[in-house]
């Protein structure tokens, strides 16, 4: 099953490679991984999407927690949470596509953030499925380039991951 880990770790050089190295060394899967400093510059927040049986996920949690640089972690998918991913898509924008992509951007509440004679660059935010759906709607023939940030997530309500 797919799971989202939220990790608070010391914002030190090498911390990211400790997490990434652990996953490759133990044969765990990483679907996506995002990391950036938090409001406290000494801490980084990492969101990692992985998959595995309950036993594997439990072992992943324990192994990540064992890393000395990891301060705290939660399994976001264990409780109510919000997922978001940002995608930048460069599309064809000639002929019919010029109208069609704009219409789709409106439907998906995406924004066209760059335009030239033959292309649009569209910014789409949402869950992974929404981004997939947008790409499908635009059609492979119209897609020139895709950049996705990987998933970020946060707990709902007063569920907070902080030190």
């Amino acid at each position, binding site marked *: 099953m797919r799971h989202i880990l939220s990790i608070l*770790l010391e914002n030190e050089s*090498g911390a990211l*490679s400790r997490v990434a*190295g652990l996953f490759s060394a133990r044969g765990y899967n990483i679907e996506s991984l995002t990391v950036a400093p938090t409001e406290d510059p000494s801490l980084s927040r990492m969101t990692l999407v992985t998959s595995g049986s309950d*036993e594997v996920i439990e*072992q992943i949690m324990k192994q990540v927690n064992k890393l000395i*640089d990891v*301060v705290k972690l939660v399994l976001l998918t264990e409780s109510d949470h919000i997922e978001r991913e940002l995608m930048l898509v460069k599309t064809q924008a000639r002929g019919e596509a010029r109208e069609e992509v704009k219409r789709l951007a409106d439907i998906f509440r995406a924004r066209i953030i760059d335009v030239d004679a033959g292309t649009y660059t569209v910014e789409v935010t949402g869950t992974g499925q929404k981004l997939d759906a947008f790409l499908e709607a635009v059609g492979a023939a119209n897609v020139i380039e895709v950049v996705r940030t990987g998933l970020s997530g946060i707990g709902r309500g007063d569920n907070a991951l902080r*030190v």
Partner: protein
Amino acid sequence: MELTGAEILVRCLKEEGVKHVFGYPGGAVLNIYDTLNAQDDVDHILVRHEQGATHAADGYARATGKPGVVLVTSGPGATNAVTGIATAFMDSIPMVIITGQVPTHAIGSDAFQEVDAVGITRPCVKHNFLVKDIKDLALTMKKAFHVATTGRPGPVVVDVPKDVTTDRYAFEYPKKIEMRSYKPASKGHTGQVRKAMDMILAARKPMIYSGGGVVLDKSHEVFTEFCRLLGYPVTNTLMGLGAFPGTDPQFVGMLGMHGTYEANMGMHHCDVLIAIGARFDDRVTGNIEKFCPHAQIVHIDIDPSSIAKTVKVDVPIVGAVGPVLRQLNRMIRESERKPDEKALAEWWKQIEEWRATDCLRYDRASKRIKPQYVMEELYRVTGGKAYVTSDVGQHQMWAAQFYKFDLPNRWINSGGLGTMGFGLPAALGVKLALPDEEVVCVTGEASIIMCIQELSTALQYGLPVKVVNLNNGYMGMVRQWQEFFYQKRYAMSYMEALPDFVKLAESFGHVGMKIEKPGDVTGALEEAMAMKDRLVFMDFITDPEENVYPMIPAGAGQNEMILV
């Protein structure tokens, strides 16, 4: 007053109470060596290869419980140390390894003797640091010793660029350290401990299975007390030998691939398994699908990730062995319930039947020297009191089977990683720490060659260990597997062109002995042990085709042992 980085580093070692550093100099660490040379608090032991330094520090740590300290240079110094670091990591041995590094401005430029030591060692250390700023040096050293020695211990690498060793800064060593990201557990959860007690007291066919965690936590006394309170059969892993007296009838021997029949059958048939400071290693469990099919399992371990890693457990307890067992012992004493004596007597009867197979028997009438006999005689001649280090292979198993360890820290071997070459340098580390104790390295002619250069270190520092070389002319364990599972196709397992070990020992300034007849074994051992101030290399020419029995073949369950 401001000190140089090198001076700060040495002061840190002194503050940590470090008496001995094992190492090898080189360009990146010359400033540190210059500083070490100018003081008397910390002695430096010059090895002949960096792998030897790590194993010596490792042996030192295993025998004393204090962290072993290593100092090596950048590049090849660091890479040569990696095998020893990984060895310590697999067996959770506290060590601090200081690696030199090229100057900070040169890092990343493929400078002379530059490697990414932090990157290379990352998967085989508990933690590692690159000190880029002298301001962080003392705090980093404090953290390194703290992390290495607390919780589940392990090696910690501190990579120090050369310019950091010449920069100057005020020295202040933190008395205490708090790390928000590192807070190892100690006491167990009371509710879980109570659940464990209920399960333990309800057992009808219990087994106590303990590992290296009991030794590392220095908890053999409270562990022995726990075992005696219950009267349950006790088995130890290879790493756990000595935690419970090996000569006690309650001890059913080591378990696992070359464990005793009674220990493995006991595991297979038990209804409650009490695992303490052990990690269900594949050499212990055999085929995991067939492991302990009837048992409910209590598992006490300080490392949560060791629990339910390969085997599901019913009552997990995260905590240090000592505190948890003290909680348990108190609860058991206060409880009105007692172990079911009738069921236990039945269980012991069954275990004694298994024990009666005498699974460690061997041909005592052989005209060749049997390695098992050498081990039995070594045990007798040393009164069971020696510190025994070993290399890896058949000799290691025979030592573990036939030398009965009544006390912990006496049995020093590379259990997890299985590093050939470990035994001799480890023995030197032990002898340095405990000069009044008898230290014996049990080895084979293949393993000993891997770190033979350390005979030179032994001479320089006057470390009169005894080497028992079980020389069968083969990489014995490889040969055994080839005999059993590869239809006797002995690919590359024959040790051709062996040196004359007597002359070799003599050329290093030591005493060499060659023993070829069973009748000469005891006399040779006695003669060697009597030479208190000499390193004696005993080359025992043993039966080349002797195998280690009993054995759980790969893929089999613990109840499917091959007997002699």
